[in-house]
């Protein structure tokens, strides 16, 4: 098996007295696309945020490339090559598209900037058209592209995406997922994707995990999980985008 990029071992996370994650184990290999699916409130976003150090895991360990990052502050984790596309996109609404992308490149050697910018614009031509426009005036899909573009500007080794399809039209969702596949294939970025849209996510992913009530319930390749009766019943029946 390929080298491990991200290793989560027995992670337990609490919000005050409420336990959201009960000893989650999970592994992402270098160059893989791994998805985490599950119902509302299963703890998907919590796990992703715990990997980013906010909130911190009360128990267990998280390692990036063999280095323990469990206790680090968010910005320290990001410095180690982890980029995050947060839930709800969280672009800077009053800054232009260009300025948003600049913010993504905060930690990167400025000599790369022009090249990286052109790469992002090549991937999302819509952003190039709207580079002077304020982030807040973009459509939902464009904002999602901007959030992904901004994350890419930090030249990540590992890209964490939290529900990139949320609230988007089916056509746009397809575009976003195609872009994610390209990022993995062409840029060689390892991807960890949290999704409610199980069908799209599992079709795209090499491997997947199913989270329920703060525990990993199932895992397997994307194909296996798509064929799994339990997954089909819980997450895929009732139509898919």
């Amino acid at each position, binding site marked *: 098996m390929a080298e491990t990029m991200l290793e989560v071992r027995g992670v337990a996370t609490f919000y005050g007295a409420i336990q959201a994650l009960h000893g989650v184990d999970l592994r992402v290999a270098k160059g893989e696309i791994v998805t985490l699916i599950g119902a509302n409130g299963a703890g998907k976003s919590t796990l992703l945020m715990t990997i*980013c150090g*906010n909130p911190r895991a009360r128990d267990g360990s998280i390692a990036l490339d063999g280095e323990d990052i469990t206790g680090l*502050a*968010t*910005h320290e984790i*990001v*410095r180690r090559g982890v*980029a*995050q596309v*947060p839930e709800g996109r*969280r*672009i*800077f*609404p*009053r*800054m*232009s598209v*260009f*300025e948003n992308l*600049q*913010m*993504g490149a*905060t*930690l990167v050697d400025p000599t790369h900037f022009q090249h990286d910018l052109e790469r992002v614009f090549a991937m999302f031509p819509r952003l190039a*058209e*709207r*580079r*002077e*426009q304020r982030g807040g005036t973009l459509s939902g899909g464009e904002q999602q592209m901007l959030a992904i573009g*901004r994350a890419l500007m*930090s030249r990540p080794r590992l890209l964490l995406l939290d529900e990139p399809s949320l609230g988007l039209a089916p056509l746009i969702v397809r575009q976003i997922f195609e872009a994610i596949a390209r990022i993995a294939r062409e840029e060689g970025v390892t991807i960890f994707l949290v999704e409610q849209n199980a069908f799209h996510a599992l079709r795209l992913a090499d491997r997947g995990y199913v989270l329920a009530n703060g525990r990993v319930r199932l895992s397997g390749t994307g194909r296996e999980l798509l064929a799994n009766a339990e997954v089909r019943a819980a997450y895929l029946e009732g139509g898919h985008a």
Partner: protein
Amino acid sequence: MVDPRLLKMLKDAALTALVAAALGIFIVGFRTVDVGSRAGLSFQYEFVDLAVALVIIFFGRLGLQMAAMGLRWPAIALGIVMIAAGASPMQLPSGFLHWFVALGGVLLVIRAVWPWADQAIHAAARTPTGRIVNTIGTQWLGWVLLGIAIVMPFTPFADQKTMDLGVLILTYVMLGWGLNIVVGLAGLLDLGYVAFYAVGAYAYALLSTQHGLGFWAVLPLAGMFSASFGILLGFPVLRLRGDYLAIVTLGFGEIIRLVLLNWVDFTNGPAGIGTIPGPTLFGAVFAETAPEGKQTVSEMLGIPFHGIHRLIFLYYIILLLALITNLFTQRMRRLPVGRAWEALREDETACKALGINPTNTKLTAFAVGAMFAGFAGSFFAAKQRFISPESFTFIESAIILAIVVLGGMGSQIGVVLAAVLLIGLPEWFRELGNYRMLAFGLAMVLIMVFRPRGLIGHREPSIRLHPVGSGGSG
């Protein structure tokens, strides 16, 4: 049959008058008078004043309703009648009522004419000349203002009074620009900004009177002192936001003032510090006769002595200091740290996700903002030659914050306009006597009604790839 619209208008106006009566009866209707030690306080009733005011309010509201319904001419006529009543020699119970009715009439006329004026302005803006004026207004306004500021001391208006006012306004422009870094760019609501101003002022006052240091030597030191105080304030408030942050900064401002007031050995307490030397020009002093071993500026330049020279010199110092503040801020906005300030204001969580260290970013914003307040404070001490804790009360913080908010958060030109309005207006309203703060408050409310996002609420991107209009299709 009475027109139902008229009935509705009359009802509305009567209701307004009723509300005004309820509010006014305690404020206007009674006055307590001290009638000697034995009898104590007694009431004096001023119901006639109240009644006249209510009649004015009734007709004013009626006029506003007419204007809103498109009955412009009756509204204008009513407004003119009100102005005439205010200006007439007719005997109203108090002089203020004359002002009140006249001002009401003026507002009414403005309200009635407003739609026309609005249309005319928009139509004019579409003509070629209008476009040019517009471009000058938006792109060259700063340069025009700067030009006016530079030549101001050489114009015929430059008497003692105007120069004093000019120095005062520029001081607040500088403070506004300094606070704009903290509030406008970094989005950290600071209600205790005056504390850093005080630190700068006391730094210069103490170092000059007790250690004989000159203005130019102390200036950078004062900036450093204030910046360290900024960091000192920054640490405890790092985790706070919004209202909570505001309360703690408010407390910090008060703590500094109370320390200055009570640490008598060090600061001379409420008596303040006097005989602070003014700034020198290449070692020469601004005075009629020079102290031992020094020379006066008039001797150095070979011109006859005049008191206003000192004022002009102070004017140019504060102009320079303010411009440095502005240039520094503009430069910072293009650098990663300045960009991070703005990003932090927009979304702190997203900032962390991009690897920005929020602690350092907030602390630099506090430190840099405080540093400029420190410079301004030193200047203030050198200009006044006397300082005491009384100059650094909460109201100063409030005024500076009002300048930033009214100017449109984060807008540099907006701060200038707001400072001119907020500092200049109360001076111009001085003729109104006791009612000038009322007029001042009215002006502030009007600004917020007509420009809810501040005078200049639009944020210009700090970098443009293409000139306006040529870039992008969106």
